[in-house]
């Protein structure tokens, strides 16, 4: 037995075998028919169709044997596929290759073999078609031709199966693409009936059987005309490529689509319109929404051409607000002169790709009012356009200006102004002005702080304010109060801010400390004046009473002695009245600053000796020793008569009132730039509390005694005023046994008023 060698192209051959389409039952039935025809036409008991794989021979159809498979290399057919023509072995016992083959020497005792190689679709030998017999044959040419014809039929079945399979695969791929496409694909016949729709179309429109739809029933009524026209024009050969239409889905849902269309022709005749559409309903709705926003936005929105800033698109607000710019010959004519340069610079910047942000532009509107726009713009270089948005902030600017004005006012008024909220019965600051902050010695912003946390007001004070605010709230009236806080008097008005959402109040406070002080001073001055007039009136009426009564009584039935006494009283009180009137006038003149000093060089010795001469009789009468201590002859400038008057007043007081006194010392000495005079007695002394009062008008200690001595109660007040007019000072010190009244006057009187004396000096 000789084994057939493996052919050189066996690898390709095996590949072709492995790619064979599996035989279908129809194929196997065809093989069986052909095998049966072979046994009958060739008059043999055995025939088969075999496929030779890498190592095996299989039998899709076999008659006369019950082989299913057979080893490849030992088979007869392994030789057959080595040649491109049939292999005929008339008698196997006479063939070197097969005489000792087990199938020859044993059952089925094959003596005759005729095999035709079967060529696959690409021409490789894939198997055999064979006729066998256990008797030797002389295979005549007619039978060989039959065998070859039958073998060709087997090959045809195999090739056909392969073509059909490929066609099926191609159809599947195409269908898969169409059915799974996102687009709506359809094919419409010239009469408007659907020939094909893909799954997406079916699912989108929801029809279970599109073939039941009438002509163009799937197109919205108002679009059918356009659709039909497109069909007609395509049929007429016009090059239409796009179509926008509306499909009507089940339940009358509208689907806006746009897509490409084309004509399918067969033999030059229009058969159908192909259409691939996309559902743009959502996109178009979004576009419409954007467009609505764009158009109806209260802000200006427009798209300009980058080259010349001409308008591409502008919304309603833009058309209205930018009208003076858009309609004008010169767009800048409507721009505020101060803004032209800025807008030109911004335009140049936009061309260079610099975005424009928060540019304030003032535009004259059609009623000649300047409107302020806050502009934003950015250029799109690819589209050569500029997107501009603008906010009309005219009203806002007005409000801001008003707010600034109010803020300036708020922070510059001297009044204390604050705004507060009452939250849970506690004061929370909203704002307060600089004056209020300064008053409460607080730096920084109190806005939002709890008053209790800011400090500088006690709990009691805060509670008081809460009560005041609540009163304003309850009475719905501003409440005005005067309070003393932080050492000052404030006149405060608190009011409820009714429009606020919170319990809001404002206060305005005026510092009235100075006014209060002035009022108090004026009242005190009035009181003093009234008191003075009352006192003077009393002081005048007393001597008047004495004079009047004594003179009237002279006519009564009185003794001579009484008559003399009455005359003495009248005389004494007339003198007293005269002194009083003179003193009052003197004092009033001094008090009003109207008395002029008659200045000249004087000496301490001159002043003292004149004074002592005048009071010596009084001293002698009282039995009091009057001692003078003067350190030489100090010279200075003064009104001598006035100083003598002062000194006489002090010495007489000492002589008259020093209870228990036995001596009075008068001294004069130099004290720096002043000359100091002092009158000291050794009486009982004056209480500390009385010392200061002594220099006031009509204050007398031991009043009745004063009057008897002829005092008017104005002596010390006049003396003090005279010394002060010299630029000097007067005072008194007292301890029991030593009371000193002193005064100092400057040695020179630079700048002091000089000139004629209004009233002749009196001792």
């Amino acid at each position, binding site marked *: 037995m000789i084994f057939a060698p493996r052919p050189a192209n066996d690898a390709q051959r095996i590949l072709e075998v492995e790619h064979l389409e599996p035989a279908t039952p129809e194929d196997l039935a065809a093989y069986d028919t052909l095998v049966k025809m072979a046994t009958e036409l060739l008059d043999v008991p055995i025939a088969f169709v075999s496929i030779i794989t890498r190592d095996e021979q299989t039998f899709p159809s076999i008659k006369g044997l019950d082989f299913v498979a057979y080893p490849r290399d030992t088979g007869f057919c392994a030789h057959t596929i080595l040649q491109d023509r049939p292999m005929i072995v008339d008698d196997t016992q006479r063939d070197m290759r097969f005489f000792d083959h087990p199938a020859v020497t044993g059952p089925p005792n094959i003596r005759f073999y005729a095999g035709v190689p079967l060529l696959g679709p690409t021409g490789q030998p894939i198997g055999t078609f064979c006729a066998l017999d256990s008797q030797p044959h002389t295979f005549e040419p007619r039978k060989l031709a039959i065998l070859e014809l039958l073998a060709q039929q087997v090959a045809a079945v195999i090739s056909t199966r392969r073509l059909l399979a490929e066609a099926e695969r191609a159809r599947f791929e195409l269908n898969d693409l169409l059915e799974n496409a996102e687009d709506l694909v359809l094919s419409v016949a010239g009469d408007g009936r659907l020939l094909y729709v893909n799954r997406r179309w079916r699912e989108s429109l929801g029809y279970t059987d599109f073939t039941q739809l009438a002509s163009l029933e799937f197109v919205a009524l108002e679009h059918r005309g356009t659709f039909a026209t497109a069909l007609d024009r395509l049929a007429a050969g016009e090059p239409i490529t796009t179509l926008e239409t509306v499909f009507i889905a089940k339940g009358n849902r509208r689907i806006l689509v746009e897509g490409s269309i084309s004509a399918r022709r067969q033999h030059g005749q229009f058969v159908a319109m192909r259409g691939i559409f996309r559902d743009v309903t959502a996109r178009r709705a979004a576009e419409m929404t954007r467009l609505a926003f764009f158009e109806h936005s209260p802000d200006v929105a427009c798209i300009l051409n980058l080259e010349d800033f001409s308008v591409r698109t502008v919304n309603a607000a833009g058309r209205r607000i930018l009208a003076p710019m858009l309609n004008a010959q010169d767009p800048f004519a409507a721009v505020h002169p101060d803004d032209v340069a800025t807008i030109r610079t911004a335009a140049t910047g936009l061309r260079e790709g610099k975005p424009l942000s928060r540019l304030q532009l003032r535009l004259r509107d059609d009623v000649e009012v300047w409107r302020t726009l806050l502009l934003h713009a950015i250029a799109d270089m690819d589209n050569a356009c500029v997107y501009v948005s603008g906010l009309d902030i005219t009203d806002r600017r007005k409000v801001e200006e008003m707010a600034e004005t109010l803020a300036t006012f708020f922070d510059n008024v001297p009044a204390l102004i604050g705004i507060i909220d009452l939250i849970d019965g506690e004061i929370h600051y909203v704002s307060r002005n600089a004056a209020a902050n300064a008053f409460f010695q607080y730096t920084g912003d109190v806005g939002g702080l709890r008053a209790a946390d800011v400090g500088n007001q006690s709990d009691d004070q805060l509670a008081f304010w809460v009560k005041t605010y609540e009163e304003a709230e309850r009475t719905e009236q501003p409440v005005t109060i005067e309070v003393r806080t932080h050492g000052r008097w404030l006149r405060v008005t608190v009011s409820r801010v009714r429009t606020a959402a919170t319990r809001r109040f404002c206060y305005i406070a005026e510092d009235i400390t100075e006014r209060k002080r002035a009022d108090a001073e004026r009242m005190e001055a009035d009181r003093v004046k009234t008191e003075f007039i*009352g006192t003077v*009136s*009393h002081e005048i*009426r*007393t001597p*008047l*009473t*004495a*004079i*009047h*009564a*004594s003179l*009237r*009584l002279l*006519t*009564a*039935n*009185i003794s001579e002695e*009484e008559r003399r*006494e*009455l005359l003495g*009283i009248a005389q*004494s*009180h007339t003198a007293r009245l005269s002194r009083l009137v003179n003193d009052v006038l003197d004092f009033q003149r001094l008090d009003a600053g109207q008395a002029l000093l008659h200045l000249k060089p004087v000496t301490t010795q001159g002043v003292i000796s004149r004074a002592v001469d005048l009071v010596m009789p009084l001293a002698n009468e009282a039995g009091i020793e009057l001692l003078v201590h003067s350190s030489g002859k100090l010279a200075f400038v003064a009104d001598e008569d006035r100083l003598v008057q002062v000194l006489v007043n002090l010495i007489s007081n000492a002589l008259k009132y020093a209870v228990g006194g036995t001596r009075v010392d008068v001294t004069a000495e130099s004290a720096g730039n002043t000359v100091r005079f002092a009158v000291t007695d050794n009486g009982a002394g004056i209480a500390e509390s009385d010392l200061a009062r002594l220099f006031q008008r009509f204050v*007398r200690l*031991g*009043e*009745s005694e004063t*009057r*008897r001595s002829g005092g008017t109660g104005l002596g010390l007040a006049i003396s003090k005023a005279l010394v002060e007019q010299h630029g000097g000072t007067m005072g008194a010190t007292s301890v029991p046994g030593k009371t000193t009244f002193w005064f100092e006057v400057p040695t020179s009187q630079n700048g002091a008023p000089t000139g004629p004396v209004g009233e002749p000096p009196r001792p």
Partner: protein
Amino acid sequence: MPTVLVVDDEADLRTVTELALRVVGGFRVLLASDGATGVELARSAQPDLILLDVMMPGESGVSVLARLLADPLTSGIPVAFMTARAHGEEMVRLRALGARDVIAKPFDPMELADRVRPLCRSHA
């Protein structure tokens, strides 16, 4: 003959008042130069009228009146003030304190006796 106590710190006014009452009016006249003396004299002498000066050093006439009214020995004695500060309001104020009358200074000494006679306590 009614007795009148005159309390005044001014000696000369005491003199003329005394003359006006005694010589012109025929009263018996007692004199005091200050409140304390006046009160003591009033208690001891039980005058029929007290003429009291308002403005006196030390104790004022107002204070003296209060003491007189508070003392059962003197509360029944009529008191008339004499004052140099006799303007309307003050007169009303002084009367309200309990004085029977207020006599303004200067007064007419020839008429004083007739003025005070009806004020005197009667001894009926």
